[in-house]
């Protein structure tokens, strides 16, 4: 009887370890957060070119991660990309209306993310507002093309 008890305990611990391992993978490795959706607010931003930006990319401010890209879709009115950002709710009512959003690249070949920088407008952005001032991703081919045409014209 005692042997089955220790065996049951062993199997129980084994399965518990499996569940804890899965939780670890979820939280630490894939960066799932347990926070409720009410703790974020949404902003939109239109870019003429998003380059290699993908959903779930980071949104940073002065290098600090403050949110994620939630969705990317084509805006058929202007034929540019509409990016939906979800940001920490601490920032709601803190970002000025002339805040700029730029698509930046981590390192030369790294992932792309969005950097926000605030302006000086006393009016602030609210949930669902759109950031007007945006800077598109740098596309390497375009840069090279510019460089070459500059050289030729010189």
């Amino acid at each position: 009887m005692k042997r089955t008890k220790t065996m049951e305990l062993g199997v129980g611990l084994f399965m518990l370890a499996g569940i804890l391992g899965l939780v670890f993978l979820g939280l630490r490795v894939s960066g799932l957060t347990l926070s409720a959706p009410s703790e974020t607010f949404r902003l939109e931003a239109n870019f003429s070119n998003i380059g290699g930006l993908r959903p779930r990319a980071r949104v940073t401010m002065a290098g600090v991660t403050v949110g994620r890209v939630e969705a990317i879709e084509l805006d058929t009115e202007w034929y540019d990309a509409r990016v939906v950002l979800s940001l920490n709710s601490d920032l709601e009512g803190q970002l000025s209306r002339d805040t700029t959003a730029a698509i930046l690249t981590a390192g030369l070949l790294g992932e792309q993310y969005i950097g926000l920088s605030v302006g000086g407008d006393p009016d602030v952005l609210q949930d669902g507002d759109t950031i007007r001032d945006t800077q598109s991703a740098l596309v390497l081919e375009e840069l090279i093309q510019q460089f070459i045409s500059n050289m030729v014209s010189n």
Partner: protein
Amino acid sequence: MQSKLKQGTAHIARLGRKGCDAMEALGRAGVFLAQSAVGIPSREGWGLWLKQVHFVGVLSLAIVLVSGLFIGMVLALQGYTILVDFGAEQALGQMVALSLLRELAPVVAALLFAGRAGSALTAEIGLMKATEQLTSMEMIGVDPLRRVVAPRLWAGFVALPILTVGFSVVGIWGGYLVGVEWLGVFEGSYWGNMQASVSFINDIGNGMIKSMVFAVVVTWIAVFQGYDLIPTSEGISRATTRTVVYSSLAVLGLDFVLTAVMFGGL
């Protein structure tokens, strides 16, 4: 001339017979799986299942975790030397985590499982068959498929995914040890890049699905080989070898198919 023709047809006939035999065995194995996996375990079956989870799961934990640790460490070491050439060593965490979660953990854990637990299952059931324990159980009026085979099948189905999770966790930790503690990759970028690129559903979820498929296939092969073998000592040793060979091939082949479906955009 004629004898050559005759020989040729004999070869073709043999090929045909082999094919028929293989199809027949596959059919038998399918019926076997259906008959034994459907039985919902009773109160007593629960105890039998627990015992088998202990045997195939808990006792395989050590070898799986140690292998996971080493594989994570090797990945970090190899990955670092390649990534550092591109100045992208901060992507080390991403590389280690994705290769483990998507491929290495499900596949290597399944191969280890086939060697450690699968072969033991085959030998155990085979020995029960050789010593007429299965026949005598049938004569007592108990179906050995439900009493002997079903708990082992279900134990395997549950144990391998758990072992795979353990493999991934320890592997990522091993990568952290080598990458961050030893080679000096910035800790924040190890975890941060990992979190930015690993998706719970697409990477962890698909890895778990792979692992569940492997669990079914490996346990099925192991238990069927034990049940279907020729009850002699030679038969048992051959069946044990077959279990390891067939399971390994099945795991690697299925891994390609699953990867193509999940990540290849098919």
